[in-house]
């Protein structure tokens, strides 16, 4: 029973809750939103146990939708999307709790948009009909646009429209590619359908057309990841967005790009994706992302921007892992996707919390605050170490697996990518030193208050995950393995 309605419930419940949030009096909106996201999380948790670690889709639901065009409502979860769905439902209550005191104007609107965003994000990860996927992909754009544009920082209008137009540009070309696929397969089989399984099974040999189609998908996903040189929207959007917006952007929205590569771009066009040229381009861009992202992060005066650029570097590891196509590297890529959501999410929360107290994100505004806010300092240190990839934290497991797996396919590139870990240590530790340690020489910092119980409630679940995945990643890896194996078989030439 659970298997049949759970995914649909995960999609519908936030929309219902969003309507309720808009109807209740404004001061109660956040309580309703917290309750709704907790229910959403509770609904999704049994997936962890109900999921059978085999390849293929589970928890499927399939209904006719727009019959004249062969569009169906088809959703399902496999070993790739399972974790992304859980990550989404896990981060949402924390985001609501993290916005508790920082969002003061138009609260009902904010929380309603967060809930609509939840539907859009989960929808992207579970859609098995390309029309539905496209709709969800676009639908999550509007709430994020409003979250950045209405509740963002000073330069929010510019950041919001840049974010929107970049993503919109990429996705519309993907739309044309989806339509061309639809007609190609429709003509060949006589069955016009946007179903993922149908398209995948009947693609046949597309010839040079495959290059164009891959290009369109690549552009949409590469902008979202974001890969160098399509990353310029990211620092603006991350910095201007309110804390919850940054957490969701980094934690989940970026994963849509890598998910798109895993689910669509590679399985649909394996010959193109594995051609010499494309391999070289992707690996080079990933490497540039890892090293350039890290170097740029190092010189940022703004802590939030530093984290934003570190995302570019982390996602470079994911892309490298996906393209290396070994079991370890793909599992590692999936794990880095989750880890990045947890660690970077936590970092954004921490920056948001200190910003609420001091109203500055500049690193130089702080110094020596470890003496004033010891709890904050301890947690920031742990999270930073996990982001660097210290053994014993989640970051280590993911990046180590990627490097280990990718070394077999791209030895030189992997060796270079390893420097990315060192660069990460450099920029984060240096930033930690300047924020937490150094002499306490600024007046304003002497009266900072330490974390409140509410803020601890946001951070502790994230810390638990950091340690759990760092020490005992096996439950994650066993659930990923069949899906990763299946992915490699689909893509690798027989």
């Amino acid at each position, binding site marked *: 029973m659970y298997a049949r309605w759970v995914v649909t419930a995960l999609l519908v419940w936030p929309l219902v809750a969003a309507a309720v949030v808009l109807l209740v009096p404004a001061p109660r909106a956040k309580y309703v939103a917290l309750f709704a996201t907790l229910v959403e999380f509770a609904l999704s948790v049994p997936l962890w146990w109900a999921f059978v670690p085999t390849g293929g889709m589970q928890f499927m639901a399939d209904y006719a939708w*727009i*019959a*004249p*065009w062969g569009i169906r409502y088809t959703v399902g979860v496999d070993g790739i999307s399972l974790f992304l769905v859980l990550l989404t439902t896990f981060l949402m209550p924390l985001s609501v709790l993290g916005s508790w005191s920082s969002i003061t104007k138009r609260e009902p609107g904010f929380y309603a948009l967060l809930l609509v965003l939840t539907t859009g994000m989960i929808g992207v990860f579970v859609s098995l009909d390309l029309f539905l996927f*496209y*709709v969800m992909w*676009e*639908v999550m754009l*509007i709430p994020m*646009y*409003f979250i950045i*544009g*209405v509740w963002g920082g000073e330069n*929010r*209008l510019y950041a*919001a*429209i840049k974010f*929107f*137009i970049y993503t*919109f*540009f990429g996705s*519309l*070309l993907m*739309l*044309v590619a989806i*339509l*061309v696929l*639809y*007609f190609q397969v429709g003509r060949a089989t006589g069955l016009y359908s946007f179903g993922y399984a149908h398209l995948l099974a009947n693609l046949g040999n597309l010839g040079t057309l495959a290059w164009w189609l891959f290009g369109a998908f690549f552009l949409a996903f590469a902008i979202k990841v974001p890969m160098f040189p399509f990353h310029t929207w990211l620092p603006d959007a991350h910095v201007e967005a309110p804390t919850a917006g940054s957490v969701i952007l980094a934690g989940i929205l970026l994963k849509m790009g890598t998910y798109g590569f895993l689910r669509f771009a590679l399985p649909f066009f394996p010959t193109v994706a594995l051609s010499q040229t494309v391999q070289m381009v992707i690996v080079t861009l990933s490497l540039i992302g890892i090293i350039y992202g890290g170097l740029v992060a190092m010189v940022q005066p703004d802590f939030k921007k530093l984290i934003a650029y570190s995302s570019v570097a982390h996602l470079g590891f994911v892309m490298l892992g996906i393209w290396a196509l070994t079991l370890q590297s793909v599992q590692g890529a999936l794990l880095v996707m989750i880890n990045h959501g947890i660690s970077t999410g936590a970092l954004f929360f921490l920056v948001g919390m200190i910003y609420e107290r001091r109203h500055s994100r500049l690193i130089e505004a702080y110094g020596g605050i470890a003496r004033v806010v010891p709890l904050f300092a301890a947690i920031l240190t742990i999270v930073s170490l996990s982001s660097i990839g210290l053994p014993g934290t989640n970051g280590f497991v993911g990046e180590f697996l990627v490097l280990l797996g990718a070394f077999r396919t791209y030895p030189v590139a992997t060796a270079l990518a390893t420097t990315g870990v060192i660069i990460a240590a450099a920029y984060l530790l240096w930033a930690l030193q300047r924020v937490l340690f150094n002499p306490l020489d600024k007046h304003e910092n002497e009266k900072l208050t330490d974390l409140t119980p509410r803020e601890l409630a946001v951070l502790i679940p994230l810390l638990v995950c950091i340690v759990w995945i760092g020490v005992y990643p096996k439950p994650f890896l066993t659930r990923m393995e069949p899906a990763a194996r299946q992915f490699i078989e689909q893509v690798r030439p027989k």
Partner: protein
Amino acid sequence: MSLDVSVSGDLLLALLPELVLTAWALVLLLLVAWRHQTVRDLRIAGWLTLVALLSTAVAAWWLWWNHAQPAGLAGMIAVDDFRWVTDWLFVGGAALTTLISFAYLEREQLLAPEYYVLLIFATLGMMLMAAGEDLMVIFLGLELMSVAVYVLAGFDRKSPRSAEAALKYFLLGAFASGFLLYGIALIYGATGTTNLTLIGIQVGMGGSGVMLLAGLALLLVGFAFKVAAVPFHMWAPDVYDGAPTPVTAFMATGVKAAAFAALFRVLTEAFAHAGAWQEIVWWLAVVTMVGGNLLALAQRSLKRMLAYSSVAHAGYLLVAVASGRSAGTAAFIVYLVAYTLMSVGAFAVLAAKGRRGESDVLIDDLAGLATRRPWLAFALAVCMLSLLGFPGTAGFIGKWYILIAATGAGQNVLAAILVLASVVSAGYYLPVIMAMYMKPESSDTAHSGIHLGRAGEIAVATVVAALLVFGVWPNRLLDVAKTAGESLRPPAAAAER
């Protein structure tokens, strides 16, 4: 039900919607001759107009419901689903225009109920254009529509801008009519007939000489003027800008729709086998999409922005024309339904917001509308997203259908240009949303004078509801459009039937 239009009884039946509307127009004309002074007279005329339009829609529905089919020889009037569906479209557009006119006419002190009579006559012209199976009927319909709309454009007699718009529209409209008529003359010279089916048969037999092609080219130029396709769009922004806003809404939706409907019929029934026009329409579509969108990007006035955006939308519709076949026609109908709804919605909000012709309402003047009038801001935001073609709205379904028609016809490049043009359009639709939701009010009284009126509220609520419903559940609309699209056939296919 088979109707042989050469039999006068059947002809009357086939013309039922037009006859109903004509009768109402005469009744209304008679009425306003006596009563044309007070606001109350204006309201009576408005409600009567709505009744007239409703009964016309019912008449069209009755014929559709009874599966009216043509029989016998090729007549002057078409009897097919395409006609009924476009009739609904014109009537619906006119009804929405009427609803948003109530408050507007009272506010601007345009106390002349003849406004509604002109609106009805223009609608009648549109219906004839879409019904014409003969180039002469199409031309007559076009003139009936145009003359009424010339007057409507200059309806605000006290405003010099309105007068300028009317004059400009009249002069360029006369040019367009001239081109069209000359084209018809050349086609008649080449084929010896003005009947579309008969022309189609001749063209199908390979009889396409230079004269016929020249006639076709002139015909295309005439239609391109009417739909405001680049490079024949020069008149559109000024006329749209100067005319009273409800009239602008009517011109941007109804007039354009009628010209497109006639164009579809002419190209499908008479010139399906000519082939020469595809290349021309392809280029027209490209320059219209690119030109319209780039020009709209540079506008700061909301009304001019909407005017240029309507040029861009003509470009999207031309993609449907270039895709040809029944899918293109069906896509055209779906897109027009969406386009009519969202344009009227946007113009309705603009009409409520503005004063003295609204041409001075800048996009930035909407700043903070969301805090003061949340529902109105929401309505305009939905219209903007729909114009942008965002999923969840009818505009997306329409655009998607056009893309399906284009890629299905192998026009992948045209489809790619269409989506890239849509990305550009985000650059001018989003600032409207941005102003309403993300910028603070300029002063406390910035939005104090907004008055939509009860009728206007009904219109806007209907529009928003329809946009969202069709955006999520378009199945019924798609079925209707599909049968209507298939009912438009080149004569060879008609013979096989």
